[in-house]
């Protein structure tokens, strides 16, 4: 991007809370059930039905707020946000308008270059999700009929609204990943974008670099993956800049992001902006939280990624980079901490290396998610013990690790079954070294003529012959002995 311009981004992130039941009724909150099976008069908004706030949803929302460093409103209330749409059975959404449950929070993100930035959170409010439309056709316009599934109607949502503190698509991506990570840590959501449990609206504006005023923004609706957020921001950024550089003026509008085509299209302009006609929800009393309520929720918070990361760096001596990778997913961090607990604190760096290099590689290759780590901390610790005891070499360990992933068996079992124990018997190794030297007279001649690397070559041969089971120091010593013997015999 041209350095003349600065991009200003704000996000509105909707996250479904993974409560057992819906927010206003006791229907199950579950993804993927048969359409319209988890419904009742309340979530279908049948005439006469009334909402009752799910205490778990309230607690989860407070928990999310605390985890995102927010202040918690002691007196908040619900408001009706009125709009007509077939997936909105009551004709209004119960949301929060002027008194959101949580406000004034922040998330710190760490860029690749190690610098960090604080993204402020303006507010978090609790509301209900709508149902889902299924169009019987290629798209809405071509659909002959549309069907509604109300299973999702009434699922609790929190809307997290940031201040316009984000300055690039990279920062937006980092923020969303951090947000997802934190929410998963607290256990308030499974945060799966692919299942729609996390959705995002993006506000983008562009202003001359160094300007304090904001440019006119456009809002991208329903951007449904992190990569779409990145592409959408970059698209809008270019669109705004080219309008501005041609001397035009950006219009304030709401646009729809079409990810497949990589473009945004006009949804509505400022002139026909919706008037939601908010007013206090008369069916629900205000929510009054005491300091004790808030402290009780705070006490239930697990250790969060920033705190764990600091601990990994100070107590275990990991680099910021390694630590950030380990804490990105709660499952990774749990796995790491457990493995270190078993293997001993002095093994922390080794565990981190195995996790970041080998485990991550394998998981990427196999497309496994953080909840599908193929090796247990016990298994890794067991393998490290074998290395430490000298039962296997570091090189063999890589093979053992691969086999652990494939078979799920413990390192010890694999080593036994495959005969991978380190050969430390000098007599046996010397015998093999002599054979190797005798079998390769040409390289022996090279060695004799002073070529040092030839000795290393013989060590390699020895390793090959023992399938890597030879102790490397011992191997060099015995190869040298065999070579000298051969030279002496000549």
């Amino acid at each position, binding site marked *: 991007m041209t350095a003349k311009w600065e991009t200003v981004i704000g996000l509105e992130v909707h996250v479904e809370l993974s409560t057992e039941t819906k927010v206003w009724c006791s229907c199950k909150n579950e993804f993927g059930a048969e359409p319209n099976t988890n419904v009742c008069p309340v979530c279908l908004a049948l*005439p*006469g039905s009334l909402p009752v706030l799910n205490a778990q949803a309230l607690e989860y929302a407070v928990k999310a707020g605390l985890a995102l460093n927010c202040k918690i409103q002691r007196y908040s209330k619900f408001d009706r946000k009125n709009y007509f749409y077939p997936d909105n059975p009551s004709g209004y959404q119960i949301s929060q308008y002027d008194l959101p449950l949580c406000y004034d929070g922040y998330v710190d993100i760490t860029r690749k270059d190690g610098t960090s930035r604080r993204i402020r959170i303006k507010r978090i409010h609790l509301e209900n999700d709508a149902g889902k439309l299924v169009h019987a056709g290629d798209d809405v316009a071509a659909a002959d009929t549309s069907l509604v599934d109300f299973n999702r109607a009434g699922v609790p949502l929190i809307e997290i609204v940031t201040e316009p503190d984000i300055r690039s698509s990279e920062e937006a991506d980092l923020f969303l990943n951090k947000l997802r990570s934190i929410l998963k840590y607290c256990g308030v959501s499974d945060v799966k974008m692919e299942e729609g449990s996390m959705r995002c609206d993006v506000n983008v504006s562009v202003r001359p670099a160094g300007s304090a005023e904001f440019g006119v923004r456009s809002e991208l609706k329903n951007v449904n993956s992190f990569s779409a957020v990145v592409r959408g921001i970059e698209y809008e950024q270019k669109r705004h800049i080219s309008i501005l550089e041609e001397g035009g003026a950006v219009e304030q509008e709401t646009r729809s992001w079409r990810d497949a085509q990589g473009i945004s299209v006009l949804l509505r302009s400022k002139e026909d902006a919706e008037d939601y006609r*908010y*007013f206090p929800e*008369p069916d629900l*009393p205000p929510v009054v939280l005491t300091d004790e309520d808030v402290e009780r929720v705070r006490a239930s918070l697990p250790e969060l990624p920033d705190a764990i990361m600091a601990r990994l760096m100070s107590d275990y001596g990991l680099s910021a980079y390694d630590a950030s990778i380990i804490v990105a997913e709660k499952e990774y961090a749990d796995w790491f901490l457990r493995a270190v607990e078993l293997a001993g604190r002095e093994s922390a760096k080794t565990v981190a290396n195995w996790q970041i290099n080998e485990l991550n590689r394998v998981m990427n290759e196999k497309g496994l998610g953080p909840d599908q780590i193929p090796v247990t901390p016990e298994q890794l610790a067991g393998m490290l013990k074998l290395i430490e005891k000298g039962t296997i070499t570091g090189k063999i360990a890589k093979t053992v690790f691969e086999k652990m992933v494939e078979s799920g068996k413990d390192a010890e079992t694999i080593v036994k079954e495959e005969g991978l124990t380190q050969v430390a018997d000098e007599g046996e190794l010397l015998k093999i070294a002599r054979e190797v030297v005798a079998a390769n007279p040409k390289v022996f001649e090279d060695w004799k003529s002073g070529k040092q690397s030839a000795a290393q070559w013989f060590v390699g041969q020895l390793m090959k012959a023992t399938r890597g089971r030879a102790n490397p120091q011992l191997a060099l010593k015995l190869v040298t002995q065999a070579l000298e013997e051969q030279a002496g015999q000549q």
Partner: protein
Amino acid sequence: MTHKLSAARLNRLFLAGELSAVEITESVLSRIASVDPVVGAFIKVAAEHALDRARKLDARRKAGDREFGPLAGVPVAVKDNICTCGIETTCASRILKGYVPPYDATVVERLRASGAIIIGKTNMDEFAMGSSGETSAFGVTRNPWDLERIPGGSSSGSAAAVAAEEVPLSLGSDTGGSIRQPAALTGVVGLKPTYGYVSRYGLVAFASSLDQIGPFGHDVEDVARLFEVIAGPDRRDATNAGRTPPEVKFGGEPSLKGVRLGVPREYFGSGIEAGVRARVEEAIKQLEELGASVEECSLPSTEHALSAYYIIAPAEASANLARFDGVRYGYRAAGASGLLEMYGRTRAEGFGPEVKRRIMIGTYALSSGYYDAYYKKAQQVRTLVIRDFERAFGRFDALVTPTVPTTAWRLGEKLDDPLSMYLADICTIPVNLAGLPAISVPCGFADGLPVGLQLIGQHFADTQLLQLAWAYQKVTKHHEARPDVDLKGGRQQ
């Protein structure tokens, strides 16, 4: 003559085995068949449903079951904005014609549990919007005292059904006076309970912060019995107070010694008819004779209450009625070419003029740019009204006022003049804004038409209010007067 018996009496006779539930039900059904064609109190008579229920009650009693609730064997009519599982519930609107709820309102569940027989659904002003019973999509209800006159609204059918002796008891709902006003105009007893005493779950909402379900009956004892059945905690209504009313005890010599009554002068303004004023003043004297101390007082924000009400109620209604969009149930306009047109035509064809008027007012009052000037201001006025009452209840146990400034007017008389119609609720509306309990009891006649006396109590003082009304009823007997619907055309030979 079974239909002329009180609920208490019917219950006793049923328990004693002197009358079967089927006999009671058949008697009520035949009374309805003979007079309702002219009164128009019912939208739907659930004859089969009621008889089936009656047969089950009889079978239970015969089998030796004695664990019956306080309304066992008593037929009760239910306003058509209260959901009855398996019985069409329309709110007297075209938009809900044919809608059969898959669940019971909490009050209906409690009626069933107490052994009551739900006899049918009563006519009303469409979505409870109106003060005359004339805005129903299914025809007007007539006042049993004069069939050319309105019975009051919006619980017009529930009041008229009791007044015409079609049922001993009925349920109505009161948003701005919709129980007390028709009770007064048809000469029956109607109680608007404290907001939060009776669950609203299953009451099709008009204005959620004002609506409350309440009972109609000929006398205070019957009304208290029904109130005790329907009131109490319900977790499905978050605005329910979770309180059970103390038991109402009647008996002994009626006395109001030590009771302090306030008479707010704003309720006796220029709009009050001379006959109504005379009856209410007589009633106040009688209360004094019973031992109560009576003193004039002032509720200065009363004059603004009506304006506040006609912002808040339509604002809430505009949201509450948004769910009637033709998508899932009820009426859907045919032939629309797109979604917006379907919404527009469904609502244009489905709602009547009064409902549309209020949706428009409410939508306007909430729209951005007008919210502060209208809705917010109205809520501030509401606070003032509440403070006025709080001040008054620092000095008084209850307030005494007319229920309606006039007697029942002629059908059609005010239909084209919504503003004059709105004035009919001027004495009842402040009570809803403050969420207080109030009861209307018959206090005599003016020009042959019933006049109602309104007693307003403090929050959750419903029981005391009933006891106060009982004492008055005991010494005046106005509640014993009955219209002769038969002679007026109900059963012409």
